[in-house]
């Protein structure tokens, strides 16, 4: 399989990455090569063999790691907002939201 320019542009949109045409020109063949090389995972075993293999999401086999329902200090608001690109009325000021919620 190979990645088309259109697919790469779609991936960029999904990833919220504005790319120039030059960048796209450059990225399409690179991503294609990368994808071809990582697609080798398919050769790790036959379908039947791999069907028996459970996926590993955590290297450490632990379960039930919880914290008690107790309060911990919050950050002071001036520190919360100190790094914000824009602030208004104690809130983060962001550009207008045009899309609907997830």
């Amino acid at each position: 399989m190979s990645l088309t320019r259109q697919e790469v542009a779609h991936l960029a949109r999904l990833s919220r990455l504005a790319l120039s045409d030059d960048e796209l020109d450059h990225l399409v063949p690179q991503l294609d090569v990368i994808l071809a090389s990582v697609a080798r995972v398919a050769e790790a075993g036959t379908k039947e063999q791999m069907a028996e293999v459970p996926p590993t999401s955590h290297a450490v086999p632990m379960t039930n790691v919880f914290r008690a329902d107790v309060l911990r200090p919050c950050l002071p608001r001036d520190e919360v907002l100190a790094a914000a690109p824009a602030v208004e009325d104690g809130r983060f000021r962001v550009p207008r939201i045009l899309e609907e919620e997830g």
Partner: protein
Amino acid sequence: MSTPGDGQLVGRNASDLAASIANGEVSAVEVTQAHLDRIAATDGELHAFLYVAAEEALACAGEVDAARSRGDALGPLAGVPLALKDIFATRGMPTTCGSKILEGWWPPYDATVVSRLKAAGIVVLGKTNMDEFAMGSSTENSAFGPTCNPWDISRIPGGSSGGSAAAVAAEQAPLAVGTDTGGSIRQPAAVCGIVGVKPTYGGVSRYGLVAFSSSLDQGGPFARTVLDAALLHEAIAGYDPCDSTSIAGFAAPVALAAARRDVSGMRVGVVRELGGAGYEPEVEARFREAVAVLEELGAQVSEVSCPAFGFALPAYYLIAPSECSSNLARFDAMRFGLRVGGDHGEGASDVMSRTRGAGFGAEVKRRIMIGTYALSSGYYDAYYGQAQKVRTLISRDFSAAFEKVDVLLSPTTPTVAFPLGERVDDPTAMYATDLATVPANLAGVPALSMPCGLANGLPVGLQIMAPALADERMYRVAGALEAELDTRRGGPLRSGYEPGAGVPAS
């Protein structure tokens, strides 16, 4: 070696310095100042640091001196300076992760590793350069320019923790902390001729470590000796309730093991799949010589096969980008960091895209897009899902191997340091650098790299891998091998770096 005016303080090991500080031969402030001077003299050329916190470092050293004069008990590394990878959140210092998107961000909190360093009286000199968000193997992906290898400034220092490794190799600091997601501590340690360790996953808290790939990232020590690395390992490791993956009740006695210098009867396995095609003959030669030394020291050497390791690299380059595509979503221009546009009625979504387009470098974009692709419905099973299964196979290979041997050995990297610029625009060639290091991350087992000689005048690293929770085993092997190699060589392996000297002959 010495630099004028350093009073013989730079170039000394951390354990030596700590002892001198503890018994009053030298003050922590003097030690810190000497290293700050060394940084000032060398970093224009090397560019290991992104930020030097001279004032804070001297203040911290002053506190150690005051504590000593009060007669307070000092930790085993109190007063020793350290270079910190710019991926750890620090109060009072910026944290950029080598990225434009975070330029100028001063975190309102300290990473747990940073809190532990402070508690141990270790003096943080500043923040070191790195590949952007730890994605890379050469530090060339830093938005703020590359770091040079002190052995040859025309070559890469490895990555992503290249700044930390170069700082230690160039004697700007006796210690450094880095992070290792697929070899980002071990590979730079190898090509800079120092010791670097990726502890058992869960051994060192990830709280405050800006996540690249959460299930693989692990902080760890750099030092010029195995014992120093072990002392630093003990200072930063330990259970942290703020990191769910932190292991409770686990403290590997690594310093003891490093000082033991005895491998008789230990079973060491050479991994068949981590050698041969793609590995430089000179690198393999140094590796085999080091294995022979271990055998002479009484270790039982055998060859072990781990067939799934052949799929570790593609599995890694699916899992890490997938997790990164999600982890890096928070860099969106809304709450902190760079914001591009938004003043002329563009929507938030546009501003996010423009900011991310401008703020992230090429490699970060590539990985985010590959990860987005691998997690998409319709592709998940073939890519991410399959990679997670390969991960299981790799863990099984490790388990089977550790039934037969106590530790596994391989060259750390297939080649010595390559020239700056050589692989920048060839992602898959860059990825191949991680051939031998990624299996340990995928399985969560600890792995260490130590120098085992030179190939064409450049350092070669030996990798020692141990079962999860058995970090001390690799320190035991490394401590014994280091002592023997130093004896035979007549001293430790040193870069001999002098500013402005160009490429040193060795």
